[in-house]
């Protein structure tokens, strides 16, 4: 059969907005001879596209949802690609006094006690999923609270809203760094193991969706965990931000991260 | 009897539930010129545009060359054999040339032929120098000429015109009417036109149809319509100035006496005593005499002293309105005006012959 040239990659906006894919994709296209159509959407939408076989391969960061996805037999060959981390940012005044705390759930508790404004993405993205799991750990259900506001927007815009309103926010580091200069927000908590942001690549199961370009998906998955790609990931962002935005993790075990 | 080119049967046009046109039967003969006259709102425009297949009648049928019209597809081909001049100029917002060319373009005529035909007719109407002008900048009369040109350039089988000469200046108007007379009679275009101008109708038409309240109340040759108006509306409209309502008092041999506001007028003809009638007296039949001359013997059976209440001018003549107990109008020359020293308020004697009165029975 003729080789299908197009691969539809559904991914989170963070990988595209950080510019990482702009570097990786051309390399892959040149090597493998595929054309990648990157559809940058929320993790939720990305998974939904996968669920319906409207994407060939996913690059996402929502581990719980991913596991469910695999369990339902919708995806195969899930591979760890890289991670970076989430941070909690907020106004420099820090009304809930979370600076110096070590645990993210603890910080969330403080915020809820102080009834300090918290901005949530509220869009089923990876970040939103992480935030929800943290609230759960903290034993709080903020969804009906007045100080808890959901934007339903992407990371960048949620940060912008948090900045304007002087609220706290959970964000991935890459987006924060990219937007930092226009934000009135400081990093108030980082480094907690529970704040890891882990990216996996998943092939959409061709057994479920015969129209899926499984060769292309396989090839892309293989590329993402290849030495070359991992090297590019490692170096990405150093020139611009003075620190890497992502840490390559191919071949590692998930539990081993952050240690 | 030859086939009429257009024939309407039981034609009705309704607007907002009122019947504005009701024509039981109308024939337009081939090559005839039919004038429609009548008061404002009589339905002349409506009839014209219905005959031109532009309004769809609410009921009835129209036959063209003996074939009944169906208001479907083929209409365009018929319409292309017609040309219509509307009451308003309705020019397109483009140049004069394009306006005149538009009907020809619609018929697929292009290039040299188009240009030549357009200019021939622009010349005919004296507006060739306006060819490039934006139609919006024309004066009223210029616009009127453009619409006439736009219709005649089409060389139609039937020409429909709605007050075509209304805003033209008199010399142009006369010239155009003369030209139209020539064109219509030479090329024998069947023509139906609406006019408010009696002399226009008299000059051009073979038949005149008088309309009133959506009906044709009289139709016939100009002579017939003028001399035997069917009722007071026609009489009034066709221009007999004095229409006097009265009642027949005495019938006596070949004349009878009619009581008009207390005065007795002698009329030639037959009538029943008690009849309600209208007497129509043509102004040109009324002679005016200085008041001293009233007792002289004369063949005029009716002589009434009266007072001048108004003097007006109709073209080169004077129109003198008298009060003789009833209103009476006379046309006289300016010379007579001088000789009789006529002036508002002056007493004169009016006389007219019993044979000069047309009687309409109510």
């Amino acid at each position: 059969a003729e080789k299908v040239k197009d691969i539809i990659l559904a991914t989170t906006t963070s990988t595209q907005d950080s510019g990482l894919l702009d570097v990786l994709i051309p390399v892959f296209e040149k090597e493998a001879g595929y054309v990648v159509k990157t559809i940058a959407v929320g993790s939720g939408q990305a998974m939904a596209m996968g669920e319906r076989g409207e994407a060939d391969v996913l690059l996402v960061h929502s581990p719980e949802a991913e596991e469910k996805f695999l369990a339902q037999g919708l995806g195969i060959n899930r591979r760890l690609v890289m991670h970076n981390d989430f941070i909690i940012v907020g106004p420099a005044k820090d009304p809930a006094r979370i600076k110096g705390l070590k645990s993210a759930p603890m910080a969330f508790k403080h915020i809820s006690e102080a009834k300090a404004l918290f901005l949530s993405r509220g869009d089923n993205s990876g970040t939103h999923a992480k935030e929800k799991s943290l609230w759960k750990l903290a034993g709080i259900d903020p969804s009906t609270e007045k100080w808890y506001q959901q934007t339903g927007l992407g990371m960048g815009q949620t940060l912008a809203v948090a900045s304007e309103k002087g609220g706290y926010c959970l964000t991935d580091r890459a987006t924060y760094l990219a937007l930092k200069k226009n934000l009135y927000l400081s990093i108030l908590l980082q480094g907690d193991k529970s704040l890891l942001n882990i990216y996996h690549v998943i092939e959409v199961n061709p057994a479920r969706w015969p129209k899926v370009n499984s060769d292309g998906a396989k090839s892309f998955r293989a590329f993402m965990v290849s030495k070359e790609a991992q090297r590019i990931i490692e170096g990405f962002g150093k020139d611009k931000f003075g620190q890497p935005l992502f840490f390559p993790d191919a071949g590692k075990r998930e539990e081993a991260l952050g240690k | 009897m030859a086939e009429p080119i257009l024939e309407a049967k039981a034609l009705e046009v309704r607007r907002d539930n009122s019947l504005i046109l009701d024509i039981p039967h109308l024939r337009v003969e081939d090559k005839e010129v039919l004038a429609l006259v009548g008061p404002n709102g009589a339905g002349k425009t409506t009839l014209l545009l219905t005959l031109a297949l532009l309004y769809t009648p609410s009921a009835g049928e129209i036959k063209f060359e003996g074939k009944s019209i169906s208001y479907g597809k083929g209409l365009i081909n018929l319409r292309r054999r017609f040309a219509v001049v509307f009451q308003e100029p309705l020019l397109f917002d483009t140049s004069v040339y394009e306006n005149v060319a538009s009907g020809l373009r619609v018929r697929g005529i292009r290039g040299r032929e188009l240009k030549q035909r357009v200019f021939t007719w622009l010349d005919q109407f004296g507006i060739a120098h306006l060819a490039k002008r934006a139609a919006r900048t024309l004066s009223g009369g210029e616009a009127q000429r453009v619409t006439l040109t736009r219709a005649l350039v089409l060389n139609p089988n039937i020409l429909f015109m709605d007050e075509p000469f209304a805003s033209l200046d008199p010399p142009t108007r006369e010239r155009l009417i003369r030209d139209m007379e020539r064109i219509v009679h030479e090329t024998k275009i069947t023509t139906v036109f609406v006019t408010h101008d009696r002399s226009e109708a008299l000059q051009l038409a073979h038949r005149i149809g008088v309309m009133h309240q959506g009906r044709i109340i009289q139709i016939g040759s100009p002579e017939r319509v003028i001399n035997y108006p069917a009722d007071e509306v026609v009489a009034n409209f066709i221009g007999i100035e004095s229409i006097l309502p009265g009642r027949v008092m005495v019938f006596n041999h070949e004349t009878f006496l009619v009581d008009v506001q207390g005065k007795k007028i002698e009329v030639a003809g037959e009538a029943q005593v008690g009849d309600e009638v209208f007497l129509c007296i043509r102004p040109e039949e009324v002679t005016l005499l200085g008041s001293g001359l009233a007792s002289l013997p004369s063949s005029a059976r009716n002589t009434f002293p009266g007072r001048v209440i108004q003097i007006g001018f109709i073209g080169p003549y004077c129109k003198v309105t008298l009060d003789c107990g009833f209103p009476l109008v006379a046309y006289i020359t300016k010379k007579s005006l001088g000789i009789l020293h006529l002036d508002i308020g002056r007493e004169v004697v009016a006389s007219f012959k019993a044979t000069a009165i047309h009687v309409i029975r109510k």
Partner: protein
Amino acid sequence: MDLILEGIKKAFWLLIHMDNEVMRITLLSLKVSGLATFISLALGIPLGTVLALSRFPGRGIIISLVNTSMGLPPVVVGLFVTIMLWRGGPLAVLHLLYTPSAMVIAQTIIAAPIITGLSLAAIQQLDPKLLLQIKALGASRLQMGWFLLREARLPLLAAMMAGFGGVISEIGASIMVGGNILGHTRVLTTATVMETSKGNFDTAIALGLLLLLLAYSINFTLTIIQQREAFYGRAHFRG
């Protein structure tokens, strides 16, 4: 296709249950876009009329600016308004960012040129002699405007619908200056986008349909007015 059917079902469900949240979102959409349209009419129709009637140097440039602005990208407008209203921006004191007012401002910027440009064309389309007739009646500038609007009411209603349609369906600016904050600035379009990005395609479709329904009922009313006007005395030009 199944998704669309599901969306329609869901839309019915939403309509029937009409929970507080959906209600609030719908009302806010209506309020924001309605107000923006209203302000745009108040600005655009007089401006369009003046541009149509007066002659002054630079008029052509203004007209082409207005016409161009009929295509102001909502995102650009959103970006611009955001920058203006930011804490660091020149209008920071107003504290309007991420409020419905900011959305009204942005939507007005989008709708006003549409209404201005279309009014301009509508008025220019009238017979210039009619202007003379109105002047001859002794009308002041304002009264003249009123007469012209009455004459051009059909295209002006269309302009109004185009303007309203443009903003009620707009997303780029609303999301940027409003922030899609639940219970504050979330409107039907931003909610639709959010549900889409959540992967809840059926809810997204349902919200979209709700939006359409809303727009339909408003424009249906306007259309009835417009077409009643159009019928007024013209019904018989058929055949």
